[in-house]
């Protein structure tokens, strides 16, 4: 019975002991999630429940964009279409050359008795939702396990490597971006072929680690995936070098990079279904 003017919590436990109780529960949940990893089922169930609402809430923003775009972007679209047609014509040529080369490559590999390169399948996914995590950058994609997405698969957009799938639910999946803090990507300098390790720093930046101070790196160098880890296929653009520092206290250069992929622009992405994908160690 609620007595008017008297709080029911006063009659039960005091606020401080209830705070202690609930804090202990929260700490237990954190521990279960981080150390035991026992709560993935809870996440999966929540994902199933929330995903229709997330789809629905994407509609107002999409609609606003459609209306704004319909009125103002007609000329821009025509220009973009012309540019894309020209680009497609150029890619035709490149594609023919690539077909020729891959045929030749297959014959050479057959001669050398090497394993054939395997085809990479890809599926398109749209970005559904972005959560706010101050410590890593993740995106929720609208395809999940039912579409064949598995943890560890690389994700690209039109410009380069976006990141890696880190969690998979039934109908959606979570993508951790390359610039996310402590996310490591084995890379190769496209100009010199030197290999290295690019690490995310958070807030949209990356650094190229462990390059000795005599290394040949200049601003503007493009870093490609090296393919050494067996997770990412070789040759995907990852980042561009923006600044090189030479700290006197360290034997290594301090190299700042920015990711190539349009993290805030791309709405459709490609999930690469590699044969034997593993999670990043």
């Amino acid at each position, binding site marked *: 019975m*609620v007595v*008017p*003017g008297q*709080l*029911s*919590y006063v009659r039960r436990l005091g*606020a*401080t002991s*209830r*705070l202690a*109780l*609930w*804090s202990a*529960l*929260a*700490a*237990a*949940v*954190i521990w*279960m*999630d*981080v150390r035991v990893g026992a*709560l993935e089922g*809870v*996440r999966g169930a*929540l*994902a199933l429940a*929330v995903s229709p*609402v*997330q789809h629905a*809430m*994407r509609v*107002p*923003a999409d609609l606003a964009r459609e209306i704004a775009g319909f009125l103002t972007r007609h000329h821009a679209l025509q220009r973009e279409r012309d540019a894309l047609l020209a680009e497609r014509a150029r890619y035709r040529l490149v594609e023919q050359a690539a077909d020729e080369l891959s045929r030749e490559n297959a014959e050479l590999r057959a001669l050398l008795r090497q394993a054939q390169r395997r085809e990479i399948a890809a599926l398109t996914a749209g*970005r*559904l*939702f*972005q*959560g*706010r*995590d*101050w*410590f*890593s950058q*993740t995106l*929720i994609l609208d395809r999940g396990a039912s579409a064949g997405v598995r943890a560890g698969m690389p994700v690209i957009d039109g410009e380069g490597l976006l990141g890696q799938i880190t*969690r998979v639910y039934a109908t959606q999946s*979570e993508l951790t971006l390359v610039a996310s*803090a*402590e996310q490591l990507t084995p890379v190769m300098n496209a100009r010199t072929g030197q290999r290295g390790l690019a690490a995310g720093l958070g807030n949209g930046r990356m650094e190229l680690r462990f390059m000795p101070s005599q290394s040949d790196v200049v601003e503007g160098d493009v870093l490609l995936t090296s393919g050494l880890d067996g997770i990412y296929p070789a040759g995907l653009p990852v980042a561009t070098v923006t600044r090189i520092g030479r700290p006197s206290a360290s034997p290594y250069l301090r190299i700042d990079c920015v990711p190539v992929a349009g993290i*805030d622009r791309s709405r459709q992405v490609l999930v690469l279904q590699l044969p034997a994908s593993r999670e990043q160690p």
Partner: protein
Amino acid sequence: MSTLQDTGRWPAITTTLVVAFLLVLLPWRGGLLDVRPDFLLVVGLFWVLHSPERVGFALLFALGLLTDFLDGVVLGQHALAYVVGAYLVLQLRLRLLRFDPVRQAVQMLPVFLALQLVVFLVGWLVVRPPEGLMMFVPVILHALLWFGLAWWMLLGRPHRRAGRM
């Protein structure tokens, strides 16, 4: 002044929470995502203030878990912060209810700052744990030392202790 004897609060509570939930689910991105308010937290704490017999620790804990899931962070990170928020609002309740809206907002500012620090602290401990969690052992030792000092203070003045009893 809040009217605690109102019995028809549930519709208002549910509606505002659902609206807050939908606002969070809008596709925020980029700079807007960084500055997006935590709608569920604000609405939840508002009802802790005005309807503490209905909205309390349990609901705020659940809202926190929901936020954790939506943001894709460690489960429990926001749950802990929201529970601390409920506690602070309950402690400040009588003050807050006497204030006009401006003063209430100013009073809530340090509360929200404290909650953001809780979120930050948990995230930091999980992502970049310092060498063990040994840094928290001194905290307990501090409390023990404090007990020792307080006890030593009482030693010389037995009469005051007796007076208190």
